[in-house]
């Protein structure tokens, strides 16, 4: 709810990075507090609910795994919207947002992969199978890493913004294609013996902790994202101030 209204404000009102910084200062504490609260409740719920009769204790992995997987996709969506913002509306913060989101998204995707693997080992007896869903998440992970590498390779933010925005959008369009192709590729080779990650039909026993954890992770994402955006704005200020320092040094030396 609050992140929703923030999102709207972010796009309408906050063209000015300085205003964004002021707002970030105000909301960050509350976001962090809400995150901690939800995590406390979520963790308590997820350790006190009953285990599943089929999957035993391992069902508890779901409470971390599913939110992480959800965030890995949501984060990419945020980046894609930001990329649109860069390319279409030329919003000054859109590029900052996309850049700040990439490492966070990569971390959550990594988390989804690792917890999925830890879930898969006792369930399927293998750490990794080239199942359609796993594979497309893995491709997503590689795309995140590629974007981070691209952002790091270009030191001039003004130039790199549009280039990486194009790449983000291409990736966004490509993800459904990857998913389809992988699913098709996979069913061709392997019968549907593989257990699906989406698990058993969820009954309320598992639904509550899952939902609370999902909200907690989402809040965590927004907290981190806002903080990372703030860092990115600061980083750019440092860069521009340094260039200014260089120009000043030139003038002083000429005065000598």
């Amino acid at each position, binding site marked *: 709810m609050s992140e929703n209204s923030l999102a709207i404000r972010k796009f309408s009102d906050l063209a*000015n990075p*300085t205003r964004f910084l002021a707002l970030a200062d105000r909301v960050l504490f509350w976001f962090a507090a809400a995150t901690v609260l939800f995590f406390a409740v979520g963790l308590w719920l997820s350790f006190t609910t009953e285990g599943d009769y089929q999957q035993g204790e391992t069902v508890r992995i779901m409470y971390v795994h599913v939110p992480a997987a959800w965030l890995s996709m949501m984060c990419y969506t945020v980046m894609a919207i930001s990329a649109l913002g860069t390319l279409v509306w030329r919003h000054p913060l859109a590029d900052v947002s996309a850049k700040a989101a990439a490492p966070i998204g990569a971390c959550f995707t990594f*988390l989804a992969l690792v917890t999925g693997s830890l879930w898969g080992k006792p369930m399927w007896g293998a750490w990794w199978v080239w199942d359609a869903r796993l594979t497309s998440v893995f491709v997503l992970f590689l795309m995140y890493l590629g974007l981070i590498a691209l952002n790091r390779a270009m030191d001039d933010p003004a130039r790199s913004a549009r280039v990486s925005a194009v790449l983000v959008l291409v990736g966004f369009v490509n993800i459904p294609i990857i998913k389809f192709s992988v699913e098709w590729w996979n069913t061709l080779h392997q019968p549907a013996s593989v257990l699906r990650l989406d698990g058993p039909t969820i009954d309320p026993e598992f639904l509550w902790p899952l939902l609370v954890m999902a909200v907690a992770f989402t809040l965590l994402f927004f907290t981190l994202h806002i903080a990372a955006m703030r860092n990115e704005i600061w980083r750019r200020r440092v860069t521009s101030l340094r260039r200014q320092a260089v120009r000043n040094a030139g003038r002083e030396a000429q005065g000598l």
Partner: protein
Amino acid sequence: MMSHAAYVLASYAVAAATVAGLVFWVIGDGRARRRELKELEAAGIRRRSADASGGAGR
């Protein structure tokens, strides 16, 4: 079931470690940037717009 509990613990541990790493990275990055800004400010370099739009940024 013991080994299953180990998997559960491992996944929560990985999650905690990843999230903690992310949080510390964001905080540390913020600290470093703020310190650099302070250093630059101490060196007498100031944003042209900062004087006008006030100390809202910090």
